[in-house]
């Protein structure tokens, strides 16, 4: 038995017809063609499927489509500003925080939520916040460095003097 759900993804609202036992992740990927969110495990273990639900990062593989209806959903496709990459995207590329790239959408969406909560995180803050995001390539140091660097760029752009902190 299918139902219609009104989903607002990256600011755009559309109707999706699917069954209520579908996950938000499958609905995004198969229903809306937004394949940026990855399905690494479908079990909550890897966070490659992270999206922001009303600004809060969640594993979209464990969210039923009905629980996302009527909320603001932000995926990796909605992170960049206009046609220029988000500072996090640029820092991940510049500093080698991307290798195969499978974990990257989840890393960047999650880091985006972190920097909204804590614009000036320590390395420990970054590691704690991204502990659920599994990467099998980079060894994490470059990811931490990329998030720290993007945080600096974003604080500088926001007008505050860049401060350097160590963990």
């Amino acid at each position, binding site marked *: *038995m299918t139902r219609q759900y009104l989903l607002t993804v990256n600011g755009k609202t559309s109707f999706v017809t699917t*069954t*209520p*036992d579908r*996950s938000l992740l499958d609905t995004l990927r198969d229903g809306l063609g937004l394949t940026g969110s990855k399905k690494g495990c*479908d*079990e*909550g*273990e890897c*966070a490659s499927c*992270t999206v922001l*639900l009303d600004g*809060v*990062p*969640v*594993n979209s593989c*464990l*969210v*039923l489509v*009905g*629980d996302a209806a009527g909320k603001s959903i932000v995926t990796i496709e909605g992170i960049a500003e206009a046609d220029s990459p988000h500072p996090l995207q640029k820092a991940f590329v510049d500093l080698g925080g991307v290798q195969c790239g499978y974990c990257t959408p989840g890393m960047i969406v*999650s880091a985006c*939520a972190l920097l909204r909560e804590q614009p000036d995180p320590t390395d420990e803050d970054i590691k*704690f*916040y*991204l*502990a*659920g*995001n*599994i990467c099998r390539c980079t060894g994490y140091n470059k990811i931490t460095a990329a998030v720290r660097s993007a945080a600096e760029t974003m604080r500088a752009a926001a007008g505050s003097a860049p401060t350097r902190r160590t963990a």
Partner: protein
Amino acid sequence: MAFAVLEPATLTEALSHLAHEGDAGAALAGGTDLLLRIRRGGRKYRSVINLKFVPGLTGLAWDDQRGLTMGALTTFRAIEHDPHARRHYHALVEAARVIAGVQLRNLATVGGNIGNASPSADSVPPLVALGATIEIASTSGMRVVPVESCITGPGKTVLAPGEIFTTIHIPAPSTRSGNAFSRFSPRAAMDIGIASVAASVTLDTDGRCADCRIALGAVSPIPLRATASEAALRGERLTPALADLAGELAAAATRPISDIRGSASYRRAIVRTLTTRVIQQAAARAAAAGAR
């Protein structure tokens, strides 16, 4: 894994769905256990009853006299951020912070953690050590059960078909009391505990242990109080030797299993060390609270 999703808008409606569906239905909170159980083919349900749209089942409220009241659907991330929980119930916040990662903690609820009844459920030892109770509702009324007697076996609770958890209540801490939690797992994050310990200690004006509650996790099928350790501490000054003895008594009380994560004797050794450390930390916090 086809199933229907019922979305009751009131508690009355939720309870009548649960009563009607019986064994063919399951209450859904964060879904981080239930959806996996269904997806892995472990259980088939005709319907899940999504409790997220029922008002009054989330959020934390603090009262100086009554303590902390929280809805069963309160997420671990909300607990982690709550200023009163952070001030009075370190054990619970310390447990919340080790559960999975931030994304999962934004979904996973405390009621679901109890409902899933895993021996390694991380919120259970703190709730037991803090003397928490849980309110259970059904179409035929309401009852209150201590969290300690809520879990009756791995995956089993006192809930009868048609019943749900609605509210968890933790009494206000007495003066000169402190509490702490510690979990040991091989990996610091995204791992299940090999063993965990929570303790709550109240000191008298002399600095002796007036009262204490110690709860052990992942080392028995049901929540386990280290009653022999508690008895050894009561009325005594917490010397390092006594803390060590309490650890030994706690380890002796456990009924751990041997599995891929660790042998029974390894778990016992871990419990011994964790207990010694956790009661000392709880006592140090109690002394600091007394000095305030």
